[in-house]
């Protein structure tokens, strides 16, 4: 079970959180102008990487705030957490 550093509450057990899937998938501003393929891309296509993964979490049983996290999906090491409106840290400067 991960120990997740909530940006607002500090380190808490994973059981207090809910994973919200891949981060930085912005909802298209004008969906009606997208073709089915482009819409499916937003809706369903995911990078699902082996390695560094930028994902969203919510501290569901805590402050209920959403945040982003950078995690290695192979080692499950958490490298960084950052606010929803922040740019993801570049790999390498997450220390």
């Amino acid at each position, binding site marked *: *079970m*991960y120990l997740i550093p909530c940006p607002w509450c500090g380190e808490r057990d*994973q*059981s207090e959180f*809910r*994973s919200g*899937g*891949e981060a930085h998938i912005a909802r298209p501003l004008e969906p009606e102008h997208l073709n*089915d*393929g482009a*819409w*499916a*891309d937003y*809706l*369903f*296509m*995911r*990078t*699902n*990487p*082996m390695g560094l*993964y930028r*994902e969203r979490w919510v501290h569901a049983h805590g402050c209920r705030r959403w945040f982003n996290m950078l995690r290695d*999906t*192979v*080692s*499950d090491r958490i490298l960084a957490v950052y606010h929803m409106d922040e740019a993801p840290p570049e790999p390498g400067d997450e220390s």
Partner: protein
Amino acid sequence: MQKYSIFSLARHTLTGHADWTEAWRSPEPKATYDVVIVGGGGHGLATAYYLAKEHGINNVAVLEKSWLGGGNTGRNTTIVRSNYLWDESAHLYEHALKLWEGLSRELNFNVMLSQRGVLNLAHNQHDLREISRRVHANRLNGVDSEVLSTDQVKAFCPLIDCSPGVRYPVLGASLQRRGGVARHDAVAWGYARAADALGVDIIENCAVTGIRRSGGAVEGVETTRGFIKAPKVALAVSAHTSHLAAMADLRLPIESHPLQAIVSEPVKPILHTVVMSNSVHAYVSQSDKGELVIGAGIDGTVSYAQRGGFPIIEDILKAIVHVFPMFSRLRMLRQWAGTVDICPDASPIVGLTPVGGLYVNGGWGTGGFKSTPGSGHVYAHTIARNEPHPLNAPFSLERFSTGALVDEHGAAAVSH
């Protein structure tokens, strides 16, 4: 291929079993194949077998980065059933189950299919309605299925706590008598041996590192053992499907999540059927060795670490003890996780891709093992003919654009 039988076993006792030959060869990879299958799990090996047997294509290599059946084939809870709700799924899994029923003899390798029945318990009115809907649909799809009352559940599996006073009483169940369990490793080994006998090259410890393409079509694969040329490359790599597809610049609607399982200490036969409960999240059967084999729910995170969270183990054992209070004193012997690849509609993708000669078979979620023979069979057809078999046509990649999904999540919880 050395024939396996009680007579050959007896004959080999005379020589102290010293002259059994290899179940499959360990050949060096050739420079060129007609088809390269990436992934030496049950699906990849079954595909190779049916390509050779049904389509006469035996210049085939199966490339496995590690050891055969070491992924989800060797990590699942071995449940076999076909009682899926939607027609598309029911037809595909029923096709698989029919192949399962003759598989030991087909492969001359005992995969120990044990058709001891699969019970799906209902704990509330919503469960009962869903079970009724599925059973009615199953029957019309030719899938054996029946609804049991609480008393019938009690009679069929007396261990289940059917008393009305428990937190979530058992209100009924569905039963597929032809469902059951099989020996997971034997499926990989049996297909490997049979495919090898038909000329398929099975190459272990050979990881694919790239997919070479030209003009929108594949030319072959780069591997840790050199470039292998092939006009057709077929992926059967479960959790690594996204990763391999990315080598051909293909994005897929797949995510890979940990799925945990545990076994108990071995005890003498006590549980004679497979019991599943979606509401309290208990999935259990007893292996022929005597261990209770227990499946857990899927972790919510993307991870390839092949381990999951302990709270999920707590939940699953709470559920087991809820349904089977006598198992409370048994002990967990081993705990592990596989990595399952899941599509948004919890149905697989089996078919062509926008890259010519590249085929994908993945996204099976928790359905991978039970589908193995059927999946291999229709995938071989798809590869050989370069068009899907009618049974896997609904499971195309395009469905995610058109929205014609096959949503097997089970209906959402009732809300009123």
